């Protein structure tokens, strides 16, 4: 059984004057509702030019299951950002140097994760941890 752990630390000394911010959390990635760890993953990096919406991850796993997504915009130009979309619904924007960590429901076949570059060609690195993974059928 594989063991995957994700930890976060969020801090600021001046976001809340008089109240130093310090959040620390850690979780172990499990299969849906179970005590066994996730055993499937894919990693990669991508260069995405402006003007096209790209599919970063297709929802080819088991619907309504435990999956986790890490995406980091490794671009360095502050005017660049990447729009992150789930099934045509905009989640938010990753500025250069920013990352996200989120569960991914794989709710239906349309629940793919899409990315679109803004400002210039963005570079992304990503890792997706999955409960199940069905490869696309060969054409």
């Amino acid at each position: 059984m594989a063991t995957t752990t994700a930890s976060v630390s969020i801090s600021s000394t001046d976001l809340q004057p008089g109240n130093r911010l310090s959040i620390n959390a850690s979780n172990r990635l499990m299969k849906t509702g179970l005590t066994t760890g996730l055993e499937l993953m894919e990693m990669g990096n991508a260069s995405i030019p402006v003007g096209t919406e790209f599919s970063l991850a297709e929802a080819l796993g088991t619907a309504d299951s435990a999956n986790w997504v890490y995406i980091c915009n490794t671009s360095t130009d502050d005017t660049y950002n990447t729009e992150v979309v789930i099934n045509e619904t905009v989640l938010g924007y990753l500025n250069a140097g920013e990352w996200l960590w989120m569960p991914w429901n794989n709710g239906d076949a349309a629940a793919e994760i899409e990315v679109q570059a803004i400002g210039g060609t963005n570079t992304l690195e990503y890792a997706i941890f999955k409960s199940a993974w069905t490869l696309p059928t060969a054409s």
Partner: protein
Amino acid sequence: MATTTASISIGSDIMSYPVNINKTMTMKKLASCHGIEETSGLSNKKFTATTAVVLVLNTEGTAAKASKVYMRNTGSDKANFFYVSLNASAAASATAETIGRLHGGDWMLVPWAATAASHNIVVAPNTAEPMTIEWMVFVE
């Protein structure tokens, strides 16, 4: 200008070689070198029913900007979870766009566009057993 940093560390033995991801970011305004300056503060809420609830209204953010949302299921039971979705109302599991599940101990940190009421952040527990979620919005 405030400086807020978030660091992630992911370690895994899924592959035949160790996977280690470590990254620190400074939360910035959209397409800017300036840091985010506002926050909702850290909040938490205990649930004892499966009714879906709007946890964060889109009006707490600014449309199409680079706000961020942190959430964590503070429990430890992996059988119990919150659905988290972008939604105007109703059950997180069946309408609009479900992001995913936060089981006991799980956390997430995502960018948030706060575009319209359809981008309210809604949570729905899968059980009436007591369960608590904590969250914080970093607002542009």
